């Protein structure tokens, strides 16, 4: 049974698998010790990205078929992306506050942002599309 069109499902699935592959790659690099200044080494942070990637990728098949069953994993992945994107943004805000209190040498730059923040920004168009698909849904 189809819950939305195959065409829409294809677009969503391609976007979600893209996010999944990026999250998986960055997560594995974080687990393996990082890559220069761009991707920090962070065991648990990397684990979270791998979980996020798995959630997106679990939903690809069902979304391609236009089923809510698949879309639910995409929504789950978007939820995790948003939680960790916002978390790292808040951490940057806390670093800024530390600078104002004289406890840090410089204000955090946006170029120093964690990859999770960029993945969160990348996920926003998908979130917008999913939101319009589920606009009539209730809690």
């Amino acid at each position, binding site marked *: *049974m189809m*819950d939305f069109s195959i065409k829409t499902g294809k677009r969503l699935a391609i976007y979600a698998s893209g996010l999944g592959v990026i999250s998986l790659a960055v997560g594995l690099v974080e687990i393996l010790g990082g890559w220069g200044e761009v991707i*920090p080494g*962070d*065991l*648990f942070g990397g*684990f*979270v990205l791998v*979980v*996020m990637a*798995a*959630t997106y990728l*679990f939903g690809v098949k069902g979304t391609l078929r236009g089923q*809510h*069953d698949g*879309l*639910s*994993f995409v*929504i*789950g992945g978007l*939820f*995790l992306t948003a*939680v*960790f994107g916002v*978390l790292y943004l*808040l*951490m940057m805000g*806390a670093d800024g*506050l*530390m600078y104002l*209190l004289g*406890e840090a040498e410089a204000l955090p730059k946006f170029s120093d942002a964690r990859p999770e923040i960029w993945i969160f920004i990348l996920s926003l168009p998908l979130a917008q599309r999913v939101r319009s698909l*589920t606009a009539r*849904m*209730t*809690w």
Partner: protein
Amino acid sequence: MGGFSKDDAASILAERRYQAIADILETAVTKSEGKWTYTDILDHVFLHRWLGIPIFLSLFWAVFAFTFSLAEPFMVMIEILFGWLGGVFGAGISNPHLASFVAGGIFDGLGSVLVFVPPIFMLFLALSILEDSGYLSRAAFVMDRLMYRLGLHGRSFIPMMMGFGCNIPAIMATRSIDGEKDRMITILVNPLISCGARLPVYVLIAGALFGAEHAGTVIFSIYLLGIALAIIMALIFRRTLFRGEPSPFVLELPAYSVPTAKAAIVHMWARGRLFLARAGTIIFGTVLVVWFLSAHPWGATGGGELIENSYIASLGHSLQPIFSPFGWDWMAAVALLFGLLAKEVVVGTYGILLGVEEGALGESLVSLGLFTPLTGFAFMAFVLIYVPCVATIGVIARETNSYRWAAFAMAYLVVLAFLVSGLIIGIGRLLGFS
């Protein structure tokens, strides 16, 4: 009814009740085919056979990263405030006893505990958001699969989660568990779930030894260690003291909802104010005793300046041989002893003994070489495991209606603390850590 056990009867009743509900819903509710709600969608993912537990671990890691990173600037603000107050009050007191008490007892002792109000409130805020969203009951459901496989009761996980706030209400919440054996197991392992009172110790040690970048992860690993030990000990108790099958677990899952800021803040305050109340009573009282013992005999210590000549140093040196295999000095011995009353006192004791302001406490622990990352991690594990506060022991005695079980809990926790900390030190040294 001869062929039914109490557990069978409970599961049959639950099954019949849900069948009756389903029958009524079928006649009363018209549900369109293919209509999903947000709750269906989120449950499909969060309760997933393979993803459920990794997502639970990810969200709990987020809680601790949030707690540590966001609390830091607020901790600095409190340090600045206490530094300023210390300057204002310290200069105006001519009586040396009173000046020593204000500087050592109030500002170094109590002040070093109050600095940890922000991470405790942040932890409670994060837990409130998870609870209000409806996720915490899902976490219990997800863990039930694992726990049942280990021969434990899923409902045990709810008091365990409550234990992250405070072990006392968590142990009282075990009254909701039907099976007496399940309840006893849950009571006995609950102190291994790290309560908010232990957080200041972790934040101090992890922040000083592992740096701000890795402190959240180290603290998270200590919390995970507590959960793992609770599961292992529950399994041991199930196989030895309380043999039998766990009773069936029936849990109503509420619909998800978007938590409101007001509700989250109200819940945070309701839990956090208990910490403030403890700071004003038992922590203050204990800090007063520690200050007295560290500043007396007054003549020998030169008004609290030569702490090595104090009563507390004598006490610490007599206890030190027990802890020296772990690489901990007499101050750690004294801090752990007074930490029996309330875990926050461990931090307050260091504040008084080192005689430094709150902000410099972590730096002093490192610069004086009191801990290495290995011995510091083992110390955090010891604080996690050894006897919870006296109030928790009292509640165990009351809820089990037996002082013997309370004494048993104290004994096994102390033995386990020595065992686990010893293992950490032993394995760490084998791996080449100092």
